[in-house]
């Protein structure tokens, strides 16, 4: 389970990460992971609220403290993962975790969850609560989207920090989406932008479109109000590709959805 959690810790894994994972785990686990990442999920055993209640009761944490912790965490699945003290014992693997999810017994859940380290426990909780959403980002077999693209950084707001990413369309760049800059290299990117600013719009800096970023997204939805003609749904910043030059950016046409013919 630890390996699987690491694989999906940053969202959808790329093909290389998936291959490395599959080479490192037994075939049965690789198969189970594939199934999860292609959208076959275990039935949820309880709501995140219920998991949290089980954890709070088991770890004897008063309600006011659970409440104080809520603001620090993203959601109840994470809160339940972090509140549970770790128990000694071998951490269960993915197969054992999935087996534990055959039962909705609090004791079974707590026994399994408590032997996992917190980051793996978070993924286990998402599976248990039915909120695990990660799907393969690489186009596998027939499905060309759930997908990724290589976009150029065109605008940056260091205060956010947020950035606008664009794709080439003919000789122009068309804004694709705006995302919060969450990469560890963010300070470096902001530093770079200081010396590569071509214009300013309030707090926004327009920068030379040199830096290439990999974005993952779950789909596209036509939207005439966008310059691109569509919304990028579920977009996430995956990584900065220092090794790539701007000419490697994905052409806008490559990811433009089929036009809706029903007017």
């Amino acid at each position, binding site marked *: 389970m630890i390996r699987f959690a690491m694989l999906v810790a940053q969202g959808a894994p790329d093909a290389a990460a998936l291959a490395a994972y599959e080479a490192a785990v037994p075939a049965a686990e690789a198969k189970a992971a594939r199934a999860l990442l292609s959208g076959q999920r275990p039935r949820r055993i309880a709501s995140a609220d219920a998991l949290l209640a089980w954890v709070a009761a088991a770890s004897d944490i008063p309600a006011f403290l659970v409440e104080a912790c809520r603001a620090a*965490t993203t959601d109840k699945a994470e809160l339940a993962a972090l509140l549970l*003290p770790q128990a000694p014992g071998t951490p269960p693997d993915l197969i054992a975790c999935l087996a534990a999810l055959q039962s909705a017994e609090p004791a079974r859940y707590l026994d399994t969850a408590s032997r996992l380290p917190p980051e793996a426990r978070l993924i286990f909780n998402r599976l248990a609560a039915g909120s695990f959403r990660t799907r393969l980002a690489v186009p596998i077999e027939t499905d060309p989207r759930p997908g990724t693209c290589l976009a150029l950084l065109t605008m940056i707001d260091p205060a956010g920090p947020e950035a606008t990413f664009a794709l080439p369309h003919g000789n122009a760049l068309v804004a694709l989406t705006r995302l919060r800059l969450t990469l560890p290299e963010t300070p470096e990117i902001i530093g770079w932008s200081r010396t590569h600013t071509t214009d300013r719009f309030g707090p926004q800096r327009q920068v030379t479109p040199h830096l290439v970023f990999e974005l993952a997204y779950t789909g596209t939805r036509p939207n005439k109000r966008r310059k691109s003609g569509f919304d990028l749904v579920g977009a996430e910043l995956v990584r900065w590709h220092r090794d790539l030059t701007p000419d490697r950016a994905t052409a806008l046409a490559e990811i433009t959805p089929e036009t809706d013919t029903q007017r």
Partner: protein
Amino acid sequence: MSRDPILISTKAGLYCPDGDFHIDPMGRVPRALITHGHSDHAARGMGAYLCTAAALPVIRHRLGKINAEGIAYGEPRRIGGVTVSFHPAGHVPGSAQIRIERDGEVWVASGDYKTAADGLCEAFEPVQCHTFLSECTFGLPVFRWQPEATVLDEIARWWRANAAEGRASVLLAYSFGKAQRLMAGLQGLGPICTHPVVEEVTAILRAQGYGLPPTLALNDTPAPKGALVIASPNAMASGWALGLGPHVTAAASGWMALAARRKGTAAAFTLSDHADWPGLNAAVAATGAARVLTMHGYTRPFSQWLASRGLQSEVIR
């Protein structure tokens, strides 16, 4: 114990009226007792400084020309109507808790502290007291650290994997304390490089005798193949990183326990120089204090928790 409090909160920082000194003041005061050299504890502009002899070199380096004196851990010093002494806080090299005694009544100001030992700094020592002023940066039960060895193993694995792909591994960490703790814990596994700011502090601590490996400062030079590079987040914003060559970056901080802080990072390691929830509770219990004043961080919930456990507790500042 119905006398005036030994420490009170003032605009400049914690103040001891009977000794006429401040602890870790941020406003200019005549006499400052400093727990450690981080900039939110050691500021310029004080008339006189007193800190541990172990903390002094870094404080001098950071603050420039100051009127400062170093004192040994545990050495009592009479100041006005009180006796003070400094005791290891386990936070960074030279860091201290400050014990203040007045006619048999003892208060301890914790400064920043970490109860679990690391391979570098003086290990935390609980100090018996009546009133404990405890930091609580991570004073919520969601913060529970893995053993240091587990985290260092994870970092070593990440470093090895990057090296195998021909990339340098850049670890972002505070230039004083965390940076040196990482190099001490990861020494012997490969070449370790530093940003010049990290290198300056490292050289000072190495000269003091802390067990630090040899490091190579990078001044607009590419990192050697497979190297670990330790830099502060600020340094990465300076453009310095552009000269490093192919590399991947990761953060090492207690805040990485939270998914929101990890989001989008290529790698993140939860490694803190502060006590976690069990550590804070253990430290409070070990002082034997009946009264705990909470400062820095999750002061309200931590204080409310302590009160629910039968201690007198309130937030200070």
